[in-house]
C-alpha cells in the first residue's frame, strides 16, 4: 500500500485507483505519515526541509472554523471577500 501512497503523491495512479487509495491513506495513520514523509523527502532534496509540525492541521482547523466551502463564482484572486 505504501507504493500506492508514493504513486498518489506523484499523480501516477490510474484515475479509478485514486479515490480508494486516498480513503485508505486518510484512514490509516501510518499511511498518512508515509504521504507526509515522502513529500518532505522531495522538498528536502530541493532544499526545503522544514517539517510540517502541525502546519497542515492548523490550515484544516481554520478552514473548519471559518466554515470554508467551495463557492461557485468566488474569485480567489480578488483582494478581499
Amino acid at each position, binding site marked *: 500500500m505504501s507504493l500506492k501512497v508514493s504513486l498518489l503523491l506523484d499523480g501516477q495512479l490510474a484515475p479509478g485507483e485514486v479515490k480508494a487509495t486516498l480513503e485508505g491513506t486518510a484512514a490509516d495513520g501510518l499511511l498518512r505519515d508515509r504521504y507526509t514523509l515522502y513529500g518532505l523527502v522531495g522538498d528536502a532534496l530541493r532544499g526545503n*526541509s522544514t*517539517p510540517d509540525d502541525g502546519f497542515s492541521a492548523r490550515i484544516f482547523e481554520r478552514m473548519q472554523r471559518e466554515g470554508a466551502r467551495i463557492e461557485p463564482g468566488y474569485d480567489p484572486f480578488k483582494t478581499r471577500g
Partner: protein
Amino acid sequence: MAETDRDTELVRLAQAGDAKAFQALVVKYQRRIARHVARYVRNSGDVEDVVQETFIRAYRGLASFRGDSAFYSWLYRIATNTALSHLKRQSNDVLLGDDAPDERAEAFEPGVSDRDNPERALIAKQVADVVQRALGKLQPELAEALMLYEVEGKQYAEIAGMLDIPIGTVRTRIFRAREFIAKRLEPVLDSQRNRRW
C-alpha cells in the same frame, strides 16, 4: 486539465466535494507555498497566516479552476496575490500610524527567518542532514531515479526513457528510495507524529 498536471484526479475529486482530496493537496504543497510566501513576508507567524488564507481562497474558488494551468501554478498565483494583499494591508496600517511603524516597515524586506521558531529551524537542519546522509547510502540506481524526479523535475516516462527501464521499475525505484529515506527520518520526527496530517 493541463496535460502535465499531476494533480488532475485529486483536483477533480476535491471539486466534487471530497475534502480528503483537498487535504492531500494541502499536505503536498504547504511547504512550497510557505517558502514562496516567505519571499514577500518576513515574520513566520505572518507567513503561516498568509499560507492559511491562500488555501482557504483556493478552496472557496475551486469551482473556478478550469485546468488551463497546472493546479500548483494556480495555487502559486493565489499565494502571490494573497501575500501582496497582506503587504498592502500592512502598508496601510503603517501609513495610518497605528503602531511601531519602524518595526512594521521591516516586514517589507524579502525573506523569512526562523529566529522566532528555533525548534523548527533545528529540526529542519536535522531533516536536511538525515536526507543527505541517507541519499549517500542509497543504491545508486534508486538515488538516480529519485533525483531525476524530485530535483530534475522529470516525468516518470522520461526517466524510463533516459534509464532505459520499464516505467514500472521507475515507480518501484522512486518508492524504494523514498521509503529508505523516510525510515531514517522517522526518529527525527517522532515527537511530531501527533501534530501531522
